[in-house]
């Protein structure tokens, strides 16, 4: 009985590894036939016609859009998230910090399709106005150029994505900042530091590895986000740094958008693109976790 139970639970633990390996194997097995049928270079071709008699598809534009939207989302979200995290850990009175932290956690629980719908039906309007304004005064910058139409653009998708990764980065960073040893904060204060100087001297350096890990987990989430981007991006296959003209696409959004019409090769092509996404997020997540693990060891050995 004991052996049986032990074997059962070990098998359950090993299941996680089995699933990760299985994901790779099954995605590859379905991707390979489509890749063989592809008449263009999968890595550099910028369009997606896998359902044609001569399938032509490539991931270049999609991968570009995925990375660009995620990076802009992080550029917007990270400073705000760190500000809120510091507010919750060091500025707000406890009576305010706890409910506010709770709300941030709830924000993380809101399904992405809701953010997508909100982004498309509500947030698009101010972003469109903003895009027109940017275009009027800053069209000499290529990222704000073009003649329109504006609206479902990289900018809109990135901003919605930023709102979605905000809670993750906030709650992880808050946790890290709260772990700063009180004695180090007091050491800084006793040297005559102002509150901000104390944060700069004691809190931020201590939390840095944890914050980097939090940002990478946020990046992982942004890269894999599907529905919110499927609803807010313009779905155009090109590589352009123009942020405000209708356009933009991502690997995950493309899967959601074109899955309905896909034939066998089309599915294989989408699975191939999913495989690329899987590989990217796996690397990002493993790096983030490795940082967290090293930090935990460091902390436990110091205590």
């Amino acid at each position: 009985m004991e052996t049986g139970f032990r074997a059962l639970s070990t098998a359950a633990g090993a299941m996680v590894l089995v699933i990760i390996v299985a994901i790779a194997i099954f995605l590859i097995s379905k991707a390979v036939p489509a890749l063989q049928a592809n008449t263009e270079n999968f890595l550099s071709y910028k369009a997606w016609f896998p359902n044609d008699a001569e399938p032509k598809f490539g991931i270049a534009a999609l991968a570009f859009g995925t990375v660009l939207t995620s990076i802009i989302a992080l550029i917007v979200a990270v400073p705000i998230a760190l500000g809120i995290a510091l507010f919750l850990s060091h500025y707000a009175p406890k009576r305010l910090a706890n409910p506010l932290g709770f709300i941030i956690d709830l924000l993380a629980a809101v399904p992405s399709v809701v953010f997508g719908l909100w982004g498309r039906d509500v947030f698009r309007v101010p972003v469109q106005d903003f895009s027109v304004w940017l275009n009027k005064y800053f069209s000499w910058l290529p990222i704000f150029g073009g003649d329109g139409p504006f609206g479902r653009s990289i900018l809109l998708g990135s901003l919605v994505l930023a709102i979605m990764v905000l809670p993750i980065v906030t709650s992880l960073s808050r946790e890290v900042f709260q772990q700063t040893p009180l004695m180090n904060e007091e050491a800084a204060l006793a040297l005559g530091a102002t509150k901000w100087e104390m944060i700069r001297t004691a809190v931020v350096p201590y939390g840095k590895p944890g914050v980097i890990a939090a940002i990478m987990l946020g990046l992982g989430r942004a890269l894999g986000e599907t529905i919110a981007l499927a609803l807010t991006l313009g779905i155009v296959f090109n590589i352009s740094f123009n942020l405000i003209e209708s356009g933009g696409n991502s690997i995950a959004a493309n899967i959601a958008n074109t899955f309905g019409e896909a034939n066998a090769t089309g599915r294989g092509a989408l699975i191939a693109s999913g495989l690329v996404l899987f590989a990217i997020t796996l690397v990002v997540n493993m790096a983030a976790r490795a940082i967290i693990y090293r930090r935990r060891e460091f902390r436990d050995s110091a205590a």
Partner: protein
Amino acid sequence: MAKRIEASNVSSYYGSFKAIDSISMTVEPKTITALIGPSGCGKSTFLRSINRMHEVLPNARIEGRLTIDDQNIYDSDVDVTAVRRMIGMVFQRPNPFPTMSIYENVVAGLKLNGVKKKSLLDDAAEKSLKSANLWDEVKDRLARPGAGLSGGQQQRLCIARTIAVQPQVVLMDEPCSALDPISTLAIEDLMFKLKDQFTIIIVTHNMQQAARVSDKTGFFSIEKTGDPGRLIEYDDTQKIFSNPAEKKTEDYITGRFG
């Protein structure tokens, strides 16, 4: 540059709990004053009230007057950071900044005060480390992490960090309680040396230490748990340890109580 400290009727609270009640005492410049007494008698609280570190804890507040050369540090127009720059503090557990090297730890306070020139910082680091009797041990590894030193070395690093910003008073909150006897001796030697320039107030559990290093001793005590701590007796160290005026003091130093 060392300053006289005068406390009159200082009471400190944590929320509604009164930790110390009406402490009045005067500390002369360039002396070492030891505060002794049983655990929970409020000596650390009083010490933290002298450089306004008490109020860092949530819901902590203070009543009474505490003056440094006749300036009340609890006046509403006083800059807390200036007070803390003037009155440095060494804590019970060595607390070098874990992410900084030995060198960065020593000059951390100077950098906060806007000193940027490398030569000045180098100079200050060397002088402070020499004053803290640590220079010879670390001069070849200034770039190594401060947390890699032994406990006693870390505490001397913290002392160097404190005196690098040239305070006038140095508060020490049981600085040797986490250290072995040899490191303790090194710190005591250091205190004698620093006395030439600083007013030092030290909280200690160790009565031999108080007797060895201090000029004056204050004995704190409480009636029972939950009562505020009071200053029972404050006098020359020699007098306190040979012929105390109060029975309670005598009971404590002869080990009959606490």
